[in-house]
């Protein structure tokens, strides 16, 4: 699904160069659930931005779903983001003056779908996350957990092949967090590839594979459970250099 080879991302501020990703190499199979951990400033967000085509990179190659996306135009990258990638953010990132229906509708509008199909997808996705009765509520009228479920519905409505989740449970209490993780498990079981950044070891352990990033480089921890067979059991992660 995702393959990066020696990807390097450099931030330049005046005379100072910061290599957020250094010869970053990673391969994620289709349907895999991968978690990513690492200290602050290690490059986790940069990796998500690059893999989600929200930011470019200076060196290396990147294939997404078999397509070389290393040097695409803005229009092409936008189309791929819209059709193949779904984002879940720690702070939900719902559009505040759009209700639930319209928030979930946003990516579908950019895909050019007809109104009838959009409506069907929205109602199905919102139903999947259990918020059908809140279809015309504004984000300000929802709890944090509900807002995150709307964000997940926004992803599900587009039926992406890859979900990039950046600390999706970071702003939620443990009960809500577990609910969100359960939804992500179900989505993954249906075949969607998930790459999730998390600081929570319990959540990290629910993945097929746990990765660690440090100083812009990938450190691949031991596979937690066989992929694609069986769901992973929570076991302590062991670092492997």
């Amino acid at each position: 699904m995702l393959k990066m080879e020696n990807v390097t991302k450099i931030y330049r501020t005046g005379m100072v160069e910061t290599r957020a990703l250094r010869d970053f190499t990673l391969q994620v199979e289709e349907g895999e659930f991968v978690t990513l951990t690492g200290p602050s400033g290690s490059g986790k967000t940069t990796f998500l931005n690059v893999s989600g085509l929200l930011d470019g990179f200076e060196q290396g190659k990147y294939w997404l779903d078999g397509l070389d996306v290393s040097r695409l135009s803005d229009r092409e990258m936008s189309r791929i983001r819209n059709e193949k990638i779904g984002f879940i953010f720690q702070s939900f990132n719902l559009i505040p003056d759009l209700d639930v229906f319209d928030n979930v509708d946003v990516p579908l509008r950019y895909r050019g779908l007809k109104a009838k199909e959009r409506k069907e997808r929205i109602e199905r996705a919102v139903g999947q996350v259990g918020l059908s009765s809140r279809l015309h509520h504004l984000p300000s009228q929802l709890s944090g957990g509900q807002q995150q479920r709307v964000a997940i519905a926004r992803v599900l409505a587009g039926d992406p092949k890859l979900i990039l989740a950046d600390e999706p449970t970071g702003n939620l209490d443990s009960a809500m967090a577990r609910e969100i993780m359960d939804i992500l498990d179900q989505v993954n079981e249906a075949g969607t590839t998930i790459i999730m950044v998390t600081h929570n070891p319990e959540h990290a352990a629910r993945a097929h594979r746990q990765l660690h990033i440090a100083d812009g480089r990938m450190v691949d921890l031991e596979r937690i459970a066989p992929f694609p067979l069986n769901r992973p059991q929570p076991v302590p992660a062991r670092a492997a250099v």
Partner: protein
Amino acid sequence: MLLYNARLAWKSIRRNPMLSFLIVLGIALGVGVSTTFITAYHVLARDPVPGKSDSLYYVRMNSWGVADDPFLRTPPPLITYRDALELLKSRIPVRSTASFQSRANVFPEGGARPFSRDLRLTTADFFPMFAVPFRYGGPWSREADARPESVAVISSALNDRLFGGANSVGRTIRLENHPIRVVGVFAPWRPRVRAFSLVNSALDAPEEIFLPFALAGPMELLPHEFSMNWRTPLPGEDKLPYASQLMLNEVIFVGFWAELPQARQVVDYKHFVDAYVSEQKKLGRFPHPANNRVTSMLDLMEEMKVVPPQTKVLAAISLLFLVVAALNLIGLFLGKFLARAATVGVRRALGASRATIFVQHLVECELMGLAGGLLGVLLSLAGLAVLNRVYGDGPGGVAFFRLDLPMVLAAVGLALVAGAIAGVYPAWRICAIPPARHLKTQ
């Protein structure tokens, strides 16, 4: 997507009503001022007789007297009565007309108090040449010109006053001591420019009474506008009947128009005028070298500066004002758009391209421009009302300066241009922001 973007724009406008109002007001002021002055220019400069002005030609002959040195470069603006009668005999033009303004007292029926009115003496061809609209009846015939008959065409305002607005064709009015039969009543008619009198009070309203040209002598109607004379009458000429005096003197007071639809006719008619002047020179008239002019209506308007040059300058300045107003709004749009950079980042993450975001914000600018344009049209109505108060409404209450459909559409177009000027840069700035920069991640 256009309707979707319009919906998003409406939400954005409602989110900041005061800021939105200020932007709309800024555009409205610019559009209002520019529409007012452009309309004034448009009214004055437009074709005064649509469909006819390119075939109507004004005749001038170099009949200045020997001593008239300061005027030698251009011929006099008017011709004499006798020259007009001679020119009317030519069969080259499709139509031709001579006219001048006079004044007479009107004596209403039933002993009501008399009042004076300007009137115009002209020929039957005047009415089709200048597209005069009729409410009742029509112009007199050429035969009525030749006899001449005591007939008149009057205005709707005068018809309302004398006959209560009824069809007065066949009724009689008294001008001085003369009974005059009404043959036609023209509809409320307030041309922007008195095309038939470009050299004299071109912006005034038309006269309310029209009489056959040849009635000048029998009714002893004197010219009431500009006139000049450079011939001293011989002893005893002042005792002659007025009609005879008109044929002898060199008083210029008549305007002459010929309808010449084809270029060949213009050439032929110029030759005719030149030949006529040559003949008159043998009689001792036209002492100066020939400088005869057969000038098209639009060229004459330009030559006489019927549209004051200041009007054009004001129109240009008002457009500059609109541009400056729009440029001043760039900052407001920039602040408005950059405040939602995070939302734009989310939309970009969800698949919106730079072009999509640019168009979304430009639609918002144009929607506000459109609102400013509509408000600006209302403001321009107020501006034109002020101008009309200065110039005065014409007879029948028809406003001199008024917005027509082309000007309303032009105002809307100006508003959209202003919206684009104000919004293109802010829309580009917001769409060019890298999507990752403003997304709220960990």
